[in-house]
């Protein structure tokens, strides 16, 4: 396909941008990775990340394909509520701030969220948690890989498989060389690019297509998008909030950062990261409302954001969109690769298979895990099975069931492992029933409700008094 067929960039320019960006990030990752001497350096950046980098990584990691592609998608589908409701996902970061401070206090030597579940609730809950984490991690990884392919296809008409393969090779490359140190450093730069880019796009959009004309077109031909009583959108609102909370509260992406931040930085960093993130989905979502006015009706709703921006801003705009979205995707994909490989290395390989593994051995295995995850993700991305929104919301049924077990596990000594395992398992199953019987906009809500009810019952009936000291597990392995 060429520019003549309506694409803002030629396929060759799209591919050139991918190669330039890819090489730059991989070289940067390699440069930063030279400081990694131990597995702790590689996995947790030496537990010494300061406030500026911590806030930037919290914000940039949460600006994902969700924010840059799914926020416009949901606005295109659910209108005003899709946009505003999506921005409420910032509550996940904001409410995780006190939890992060508590995690750092209780587990100064901890590595992963799986560590916490194993030590706090025991094996049964750990298994339920690991299944949820793996399903979620793959759902997110696949959605990010898919988003890379969709982005390039929407902007340049380049085949989906080429874009998807390129972003995976790039992110696996620099995470492999640099570990969490490279992930956090690139996140900082990517956060700056994202903020500047998103503001630029919104500015040009309002300047080119006036607010009045957008409002008039939507009100006349797509009235449901402005309806504040839009039924599906009302149902979606809290579901999205619980989905976001579940993602952050359980995922090792956020736990590993809380453990990597130095001193008392975690609370302030997550709070600021959440506040900075809040307006971004409003801006990216707003872009989608201009689509009907511009005569853009995308083949798939998740392509609407890049298509509108490219249409309004022309070739330069398309390059800006490409850089912003590519940065957003990379900042999440690398974090997820690093955090999931930590979970595999620490929770499965070290704790279950090779307890005597040396630090050097763990460092090597961690790198193999990143490579293996990259290959698996690529295989899952090959068939473009669903839209990004639908794929992500499927994971909502899983992660929302962990919210109350995680919160109560951190603060309440009474909740026992049996109830936590039951809450996560039954919550997930009921969430999946809701997903298939009613729709994706109730999966997380149903899952969290059932899990909360079982946790409440557990608090009433359980006699356990957990000793917090058990969470401060000392390392046995040697160098």
């Amino acid at each position: 396909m060429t520019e003549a067929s309506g694409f803002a960039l030629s396929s060759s320019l799209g591919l050139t941008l991918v190669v330039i960006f890819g090489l730059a990030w991989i070289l940067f990752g390699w440069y930063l990775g030279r400081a990694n001497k131990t597995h702790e350096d590689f996995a947790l950046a030496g537990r010494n990340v300061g406030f500026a980098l911590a806030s930037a990584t919290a914000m940039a990691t949460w600006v994902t394909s969700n924010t840059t592609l799914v926020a416009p998608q949901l606005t295109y589908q659910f209108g005003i509520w899709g946009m505003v409701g999506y921005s409420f996902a910032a509550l996940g970061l904001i409410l995780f701030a006190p939890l992060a401070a508590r995690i750092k206090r209780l587990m100064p030597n901890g590595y992963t969220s799986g560590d916490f579940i194993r030590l706090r609730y025991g094996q049964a809950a750990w298994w339920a948690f690991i299944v949820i984490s793996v399903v979620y991690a793959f759902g997110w990884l696949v959605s990010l890989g898919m988003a890379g392919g969709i982005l390039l296809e929407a902007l340049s008409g380049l085949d989906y498989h080429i874009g998807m393969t390129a972003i995976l090779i790039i992110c696996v490359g620099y995470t492999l060389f640099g570990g969490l140190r490279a992930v956090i450093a690139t996140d900082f730069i990517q956060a700056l690019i994202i903020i500047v880019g998103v503001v630029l796009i919104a500015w040009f959009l309002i300047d080119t297509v006036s607010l009045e004309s957008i409002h008039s077109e939507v009100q006349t031909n797509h009235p449901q998008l402005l309806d504040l009583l839009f039924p599906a959108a009302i149902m979606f609102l809290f579901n999205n909030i619980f989905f976001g909370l579940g993602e952050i509260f359980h995922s090792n992406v956020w736990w590993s950062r809380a453990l990597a931040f130095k001193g008392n930085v975690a609370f302030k960093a997550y709070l600021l990261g959440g506040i900075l993130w809040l307006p971004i989905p409003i801006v990216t979502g707003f872009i989608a409302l201009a689509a009907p006015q511009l005569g853009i009706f995308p083949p798939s709703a998740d392509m609407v954001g890049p298509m509108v921006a490219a249409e309004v801003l022309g070739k330069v705009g398309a390059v800006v969109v490409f850089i912003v979205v590519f940065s957003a995707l990379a900042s999440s994909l690398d974090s997820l690769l690093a955090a999931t490989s930590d979970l595999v290395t620490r929770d499965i390989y070290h704790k279950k298979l090779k307890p005597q593994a040396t630090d050097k051995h763990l460092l090597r295995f961690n790198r193999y895990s990143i490579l293996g995850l990259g290959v698996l993700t690529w295989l899952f991305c090959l068939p473009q099975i669903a839209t990004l929104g639908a794929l992500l919301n499927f994971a909502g049924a899983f992660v929302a069931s962990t919210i109350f077990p995680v919160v109560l596990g951190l603060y309440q000594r009474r909740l026992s492992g049996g109830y936590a395992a039951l809450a996560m398992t039954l919550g997930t199953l009921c969430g999946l029933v809701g997903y298939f019987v009613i729709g994706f906009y109730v999966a997380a809500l149903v899952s969290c409700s059932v899990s909360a009810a079982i946790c409440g019952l557990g608090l009433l009936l359980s006699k356990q008094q957990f000793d917090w000291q058990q969470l401060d597990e000392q390392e046995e392995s040697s160098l």
Partner: protein
Amino acid sequence: MPNRYGFITHIALLFLITLLARPVSAQDTTTHFTLTAPESSREGYFVVSLDQAPQPGMVLQQSSNPNFSVITAEFVWFGDFEKMTLTGFSNGDYYFRIAPSAEVASNSVAVKVRHYPAWQAYTLFFIGLALFSLLVVTIIVLHRTRSRESNRGPDD
């Protein structure tokens, strides 16, 4: 004497050629597209698909009646994508077809938009609100309690 069989063969071939010959104007140059769409939508958005790549500038017409007496909206097909996502529809029956011309034609498809009932939406909304409030209060109260305890001395 000329070869009688050869002569008959030539005449027969000539006759066959005249059967195949048709005026240019009678040739069917119209491309027929097959449109597909879901029968119903509960969210007011849906995808309309073509069976082959669209032609440049091709337009999808929308009407509120099956004979398209009044065209309520038109959507230009983008690029060479075979799908188009339409959104923001209120309750009602909608009909779609490719704007007929000498070059293109299509079948028409009907989509019934019926949004979820308000009671279902509000029930889920208020359940979500109650659960979210419970979670926020739980985190704030427990965090403050534990912080106070840890300031006093060893946790718990």
